[in-house]
């Protein structure tokens, strides 16, 4: 009786083993994560799925951006945009001084613009360095981290793509690999979804940061800058997105970098 019970217990396991062998009799290449072709974006750009971010910066960290530049020029730049307008305008080193109207307040006061401030450093009782962000889209969620010296903030906006998609666009100032590690620690899961980073990275740590982003975070990293500049534009996107281009431009005396990002992979 005991032997019969043992045989009965083993039978289902044998059946399972045999059925597995039957479905995949010959070993072959793994078509999962090991296959690079699976998540390679197509060369053809589908413009309906592209959104644009303008990052204003001198890439040299040479003081408060609007100290010698007129906010009115930004207003002109924004109103001059035609066709698919940038989702967000970012202004590096648009620092916040307590009790003093922020440079972009004037812009949002006169134009139909929502603006926010992403701090780069711990809050100061006087001046806090950071990036200002302006958008014409209402913001329901403004996400951010302040973790062991790493700061990152981002707006979630319904991007007008083929299908309206809530995309979180973060910005940060990355001056060390440790900061990127903190960002990864805090936002690793979110950054695999509909979230991108348009940031500035110190030239000196650029290579390490890009390597970390690609190898540890499993995200795509693109940089733009030159050996003459202290900073590079850094764009980090998840597998379903691709940074199509980063182009430099200038409006009056306001240098900017136009980042085009496409969501190419839809579920």
């Amino acid at each position: 009786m005991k032997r019969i019970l043992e045989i009965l217990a083993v039978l289902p396991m044998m059946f399972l083993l045999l059925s597995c062998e039957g479905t995949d009799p010959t070993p072959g290449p793994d078509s999962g994560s090991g296959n690079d072709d699976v998540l390679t974006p197509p060369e053809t750009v589908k413009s309906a799925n592209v959104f644009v971010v303008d990052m204003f910066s001198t890439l040299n960290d040479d003081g408060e951006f609007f100290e010698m530049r007129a906010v009115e020029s930004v207003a002109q730049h924004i109103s001059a945009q035609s066709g698919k307008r940038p989702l967000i305008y970012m202004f590096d080193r648009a620092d916040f001084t307590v009790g003093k109207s922020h440079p972009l307040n004037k812009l949002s006061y006169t134009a139909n613009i929502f603006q926010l401030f992403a701090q780069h450093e711990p809050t100061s009782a006087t001046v806090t360095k950071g990036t200002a962000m302006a958008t014409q889209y209402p913001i329901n969620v403004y996400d951010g981290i302040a973790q062991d010296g790493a700061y990152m903030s981002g707006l979630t906006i319904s991007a007008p793509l083929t299908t309206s998609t809530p995309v979180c666009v973060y910005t940060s100032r990355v001056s060390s690999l440790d900061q990127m590690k903190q960002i990864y620690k805090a936002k690793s899961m979110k950054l695999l979804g509909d979230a991108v980073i348009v940031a500035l990275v110190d030239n000196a740590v650029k290579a390490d940061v890009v390597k970390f982003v690609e190898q540890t975070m499993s995200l795509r990293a693109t940089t733009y800058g030159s050996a003459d500049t202290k900073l590079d534009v850094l764009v980090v996107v998840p597998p379903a997105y691709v940074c199509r281009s980063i182009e430099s431009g200038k409006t009056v005396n306001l240098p900017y970098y136009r980042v085009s990002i496409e969501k190419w992979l839809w579920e």
Partner: protein
Amino acid sequence: MKRIITLISILFASAAVMSAAEKGDTLKLMTYNLRFGELASMEQIADYISSQQPDIVALQECDWATNRTRAPHQNGVKFVNELAYHTGMFGIYGKSINYAGGYYGIGLLSRYPILRYERVLLPNDGKTEQRSMLIADIELPDGQVITFVNTHLEVKTAQMRIEQVQFINEYLKDCPNQLFLAGDMNATPDTEEMEMLRQGWTDLTDRVFTYSTSKPQIKIDYIYAKPAENVELLGTAVKEGVMLSDHFPVISTIVFTNK
């Protein structure tokens, strides 16, 4: 002799303030329902706010570029943007509903940068106006992060307010930071919904009437804190005599120590 007594009193008062300040962050919190700017200009409201030097202000009944017939002087005005511009504070806006060609909702001004924020819609039975709350994380100069919540609860039904209070409590239950909740609760202190709030939160205001400015008869504007043990109330005041809205502004000054 009189001069000596005065001097001693000043010394004691200074010592008390210094002792509180040494313990942690002194924060001046304000809540103010603006009644869609019907009774004053944004410059007037901003001047008043600036004169009080608050650190954080919860604003209710804020329009964003509406064409409201009852406040034609505010047509097209984005309240929070203007107030931020005139006060030199940070401004964020939370839309509750579309209204008169723009938005109607709540706002928040902060003396310090806002690390993150979220506009959350409160429960709504479909028969009443949609209400919302704005949740903002703010890093103070000493590195401590607080979460400040601004809301404007339903006006017509107590049952809806009870559900909204339950929702707020549930939504914030895992918040790791010191919490402050301010706003127009549309409920007097003796109501069930305010009793529910007091079970988890400490009221940082007194019982002076906040509404209406022309005939003060009820208190419906509050500032709460949670947990209570980290917060010491230095003073609170309903700013009677400020006639820029149909509500009086309410200001509480606290010392916050993260134990």
